[in-house]
């Protein structure tokens, strides 16, 4: 039944794509994020039915054969994605663990190719909006499910059951926490500027419920990464809200009100963020990170995917227990091997070496910078014909939302190995698309890329 429903939806999307081939791109976004093959357990889960591949080929062939290429540009950042893809391919060939590396390569290449391809298809505002909508609803599917279950009391670290039985990929607690928090600014943008679902009370009610569900995901999964991500988003939003003091007041009241309702397991686990010496998970991370730095010195070109399998180390954890008036400190010696990186930055350093890490970092930082430039450009501008002025413009809103989502993800990425997740590369693809859309639609009227302080003195003042 479940399988039939999912297949019916995918079938509908594929058929509708014959009228509008762009819908195949949306279908791929959906399949890559939700992974319906994992949700169902009948026909849809059968490995012979290569749903992801079908959607990928349809999206690509649809664009190549049926879609107009007018306005499609290949930006420098897309070039970097292709370079990263080539580099990853090379390290996979010379990988320390060829079998495991090939397994990871099998999904990484698709995420990278799709990211380089996506901006070519996002030529119009409506397409950009549709892609954002599908990303939000896809991640929202998991977030709403987890949110409801958390309210119902089904949470706990590694125990919250999110649609599927395995705790991997996007369904892993820390990853979905980061992604769920990252879609909040995008959902807010859709509620404000959406044209598919125009802003009205229904859209705002759904958005409010979705945001609430997203905030519940770090609680439900007890993932510390999620709490850090939510805190970062709270601070970032401060930069973009109109009434800062009202926002700060409301946010602190809500936070104070929420604390008594948080489950004890959550508050206990969050308490270990600062006292990490007694925590094996945190100690392992630090040990793996040190190991990776040494590993990169010996393998400057990277060890290929899953190079972490080479690690093995012994370390001590320190636990303090209180018994009456006395305090006892217990040291435990732990030996572990093949521990994952628990950080995207170290994941890249170990797997792709200095060059791969550098390339990836430039790709990410350039995205943040581009979005900042768009914020400057639109922030202080009077509205043109048919456009909202300044901060009310959809471009300013989307640039801000993409920057916030990206930053939240990059902070979360410091604690979990999510450097190649399709979700991240979809954000990158959207940024490329918005950047090249603005460049194309605005270039004839003014120099888009004027630096503040250059020939556009009104942009020289910092944002309010």
């Amino acid at each position, binding site marked *: 039944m*479940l399988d039939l429903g999912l297949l019916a*939806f995918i079938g509908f999307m594929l058929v509708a794509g014959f009228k509008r081939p*762009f819908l195949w791109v949306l279908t791929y976004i959906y399949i890559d994020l939700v992974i319906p093959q994992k949700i169902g357990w009948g026909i849809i889960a059968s490995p012979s039915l290569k749903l992801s591949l079908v959607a990928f080929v349809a999206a690509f062939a649809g664009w190549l054969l049926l879609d107009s290429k007018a306005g499609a540009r290949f930006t420098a950042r897309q070039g970097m994605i292709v370079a990263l893809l080539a580099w990853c391919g090379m390290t996979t060939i010379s990988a320390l663990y060829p079998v495991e590396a090939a397994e990871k390569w099998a999904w990484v290449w698709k995420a990278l190719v799709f990211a380089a391809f996506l901006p070519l298809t996002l030529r*119009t505002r*409506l397409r950009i909006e*549709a892609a954002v909508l599908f990303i939000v*609803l896809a991640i929202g*599917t998991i977030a709403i499910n987890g949110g409801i279950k958390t309210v119902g009391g089904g949470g706990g670290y590694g125990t919250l059951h999110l*649609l599927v039985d395995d705790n991997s990929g996007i369904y892993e607690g820390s990853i979905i926490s980061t992604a769920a928090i990252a879609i909040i600014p995008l959902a807010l943008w859709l509620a404000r500027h959406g044209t598919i679902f125009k802003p009205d009370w229904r859209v705002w009610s759904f958005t409010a419920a979705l945001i609430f569900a997203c905030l519940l995901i770090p609680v439900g999964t007890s993932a510390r990464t999620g709490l850090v991500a939510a805190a970062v988003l709270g601070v970032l939003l401060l930069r973009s809200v109109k009434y800062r003091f009202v926002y700060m007041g409301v946010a602190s009241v809500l936070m104070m009100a929420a604390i008594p309702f948080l489950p004890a397991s959550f508050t206990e686990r969050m308490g270990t963020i600062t006292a990490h010496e007694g925590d094996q998970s945190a100690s392992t991370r630090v040990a793996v990170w040190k190991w990776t730095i040494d590993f990169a010195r010996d393998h400057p070109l990277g060890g290929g995917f899953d190079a972490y399998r080479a690690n093995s180390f012994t370390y001590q954890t320190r636990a303090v227990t209180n018994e009456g008036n006395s305090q006892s400190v217990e040291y435990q010696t732990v030996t572990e091997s093949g521990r994952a990186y628990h950080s995207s930055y170290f994941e890249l350093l170990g797997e792709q070496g200095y060059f791969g890490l550098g390339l990836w970092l430039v790709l990410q930082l350039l995205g943040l910078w581009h979005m900042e430039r768009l914020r400057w450009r639109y922030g202080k501008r009077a509205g043109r014909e048919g456009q909202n002025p300044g901060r009310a413009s959809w471009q300013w809103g989307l640039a801000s939302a993409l920057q916030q989502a990206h930053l939240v993800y990059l902070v979360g990425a410091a604690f979990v190995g999510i450097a190649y997740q399709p979700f991240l590369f979809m954000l990158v693809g959207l940024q490329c698309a918005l950047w090249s859309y603005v460049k194309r639609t605005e270039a004839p009227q003014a120099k888009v890329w004027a630096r503040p302080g250059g020939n556009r003195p009104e942009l020289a003042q910092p944002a309010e």
Partner: protein
Amino acid sequence: MIDIFTLALTHGLMALAALLLLGRADLDDEEAGERPPRPWQRRTPASDED
């Protein structure tokens, strides 16, 4: 039960969005909105005539 509800809700919204997109000319071409709509896209033909 919760799973079915969530899947029905978001998939329903995605399907509805896809349906709405099918009828939007500006999905493929932004200038399409500035041209007069094709006959089958007119909802109120009378208002288009003036």
